[in-house]
């Protein structure tokens, strides 16, 4: 049989990422579709690990970095954000991110068919990255829920120590609806690997992917093509276009983002920058000491983030197999490379390698390896990590003072810049033909049987796809964040008054103190 990487003028979209599709109700199950209990067990564990990243990992990481009078406000913002988004995800978030949309907006946002988790049950299934292999859909719902919960929480670091609690919640609500959900849909929503199998043996599946009449038509064309390779290729190309029609816009552009470089990190980082610019600087910045109040807490948070990130990255493989192990290994190597690089950079320029630097470098490495972890090889991961450490250090220590924005906990410098770097380098090191630095390549699922193969790699095309991905995240998140800030400003107000800020948000906004 035949697998094609390029058909006609069109490059087949790379078919990987944290996304997958639920297309099979129990009633219409493809005969060969199976749920593996090992995959299911792993994904339930991975989901719990991602919860740990936000809560308490991220909360402690941020909490230690603020002054002691504001630590509870940060912990409370992360707590409330997590709870709010988890509920929103079940109400409509999952549906808008991971179902087919309708009309002209279909490539950008999903529909309402699974609002309130309607049509989801213990017997419905979600696709993975292997043909004929599925997860229970509920597993996919909660795994993606944890991603949705952590992403808005990342932004909290940028406006820490000065934003009103009411404004925080309103901003995060708007941003989640209009920036996170469209990005998740555009990057991760696709038809699933089995929809790229055009075979009479899987006729029911073909019908469920393109509809009954189109399916009969494609299968007839395939039968007519016989063994003529060119004709088969033409039929497959047409079938690819039909089955890809409902996919996310960036997915069809060929952008690859394994665990959320653009959806999570660039998205949150740019929102952080816009918030920092809209809110203005903290009272007393550069005049009063604003040293972190407890770096031990910050390291504890870093450790929990690191630990939880294995669920985030290796879990994004959706199956318990070698691919998950590669993502796991790359996550360790990228993180360690970045922590060492940041420390080295500090030692050279400042004569001291600080713990805060190493912890910041570790997070920068985790961010940069996130889009790449399942695509690159171990040596590529080390290079990505090392570059992320140096580039993010430069952004945080030199770029921020030059532009003068007060991104309190460096959300843009670490997540924004680290995410952009990671997204672009993913397009470089996914290349399966660069010797020791070789990556895993991109899988092409289009075939007339259940096989899948590595697609041809074209560096310029891949970098262009990655660039569109990065640019889309920047523009979308930038515009949504700006409008959301304006809405907050003219309704509940963005900032606390100066007296409250001096007193600290713990007392002023929450009526309590951390240390008594």
């Amino acid at each position: 049989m035949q697998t094609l990487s390029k058909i006609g003028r069109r490059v087949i979209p790379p078919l990987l990422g944290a996304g997958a599709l639920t297309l099979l109700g129990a009633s219409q199950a493809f005969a060969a579709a199976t749920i593996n209990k090992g995959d299911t067990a792993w994904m339930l564990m991975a989901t719990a690990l991602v919860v740990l990243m936000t809560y308490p990992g991220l909360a402690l990481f941020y909490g230690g970095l603020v002054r002691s009078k504001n630590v509870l406000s940060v912990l409370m913002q992360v707590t409330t954000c997590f709870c709010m988004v988890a509920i929103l995800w079940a109400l409509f978030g999952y549906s808008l991110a991971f179902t087919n949309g309708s009309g002209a907006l279909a490539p950008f946002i999903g529909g309402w068919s699974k609002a309130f988790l309607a049509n989801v049950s213990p017997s419905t299934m979600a696709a993975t990255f292997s043909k004929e292999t599925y997860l229970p859909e509920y597993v996919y719902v909660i795994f993606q829920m944890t991603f949705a919960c952590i992403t808005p929480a990342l932004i909290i670091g940028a406006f820490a120590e000065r934003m009103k609690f009411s404004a925080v919640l309103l901003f995060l609500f708007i941003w989640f609806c209009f920036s996170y959900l469209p990005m998740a849909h555009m990057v991760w929503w696709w038809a699933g690997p089995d929809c790229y199998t055009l075979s009479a043996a899987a006729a029911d599946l073909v019908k469920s992917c393109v509809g009954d009449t189109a399916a009969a038509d494609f299968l007839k064309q395939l039968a007519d093509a016989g063994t003529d390779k060119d004709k088969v290729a033409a039929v497959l190309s047409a079938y690819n276009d039909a089955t890809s029609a409902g996919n996310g816009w960036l997915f069809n552009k060929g952008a690859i983002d394994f665990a959320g470089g653009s959806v999570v990190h660039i998205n949150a980082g740019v929102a952080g920058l816009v918030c920092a610019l809209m809110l203005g600087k903290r009272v007393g910045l550069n005049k009063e000491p604003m040293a972190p109040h407890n770096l031990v807490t910050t390291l504890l948070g870093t450790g929990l983030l690191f630990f939880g990130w294995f669920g985030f990255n290796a879990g994004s493989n959706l199956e318990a197999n070698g691919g998950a192990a590669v993502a796991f290994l790359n996550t360790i190597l990228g993180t360690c490379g970045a922590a060492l690089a940041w420390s080295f950079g500090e030692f050279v320029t400042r004569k001291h390698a600080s713990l805060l630097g190493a912890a910041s470098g570790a997070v920068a490495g985790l961010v940069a390896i996130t889009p790449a972890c399942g695509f690159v090889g171990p040596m590529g991961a080390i290079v990505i990590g090392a570059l992320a450490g140096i580039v993010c250090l430069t952004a945080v220590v030199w770029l921020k003072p030059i532009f003068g924005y007060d991104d309190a906990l460096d959300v843009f410098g670490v997540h924004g810049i680290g995410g952009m770097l990671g997204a672009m380098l993913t397009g470089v090191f996914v290349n399966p033909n660069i010797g020791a630095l070789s990556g895993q390549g991109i899988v092409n699922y289009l075939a007339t049987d259940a096989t899948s193969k590595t697609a041809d790699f074209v560096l310029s095309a891949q970098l262009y796809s990655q660039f569109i991905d990065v640019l889309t995240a920047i523009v979308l998140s930038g515009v949504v964040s700006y409008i959301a800030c304006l809405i907050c400003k003219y309704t509940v107000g963005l900032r606390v008054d100066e007296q409250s800020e001096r007193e600290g948000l713990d007392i002023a906004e929450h009526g309590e103190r951390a240390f008594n």
Partner: protein
Amino acid sequence: MKYIIAIIKPFKLEEVREALSAIGVQGVTVTEVKGHGRQRGHTEFYRGAEYAVSFVPKVKIEVAVESSIVSKVVEAIQSAAKTGQIGDGKVFVLPLEEAYRVRTGESGSSAL
């Protein structure tokens, strides 16, 4: 009676307490303080932020003693607190008008 205030390096506190105890000084009040004399502070870096820490942690010792032993007390503090490095601290001697013991109402040197 004299009131003696000494600012010393924190890690010298135990040695100074032993030296005072050895010459019969019974009551000592200790406070953790920050300050600077000729000793410069240091600079701390937190990512891009740089803070000059000009106030250095010190310990302030206060003792009230009879005038007759003031020189012994000052000498004991000086020798116990000395490292020879900048930042060893200061000793101040102030006149003390009166002293009372709360429990018994004694006054003067018997209250010390």
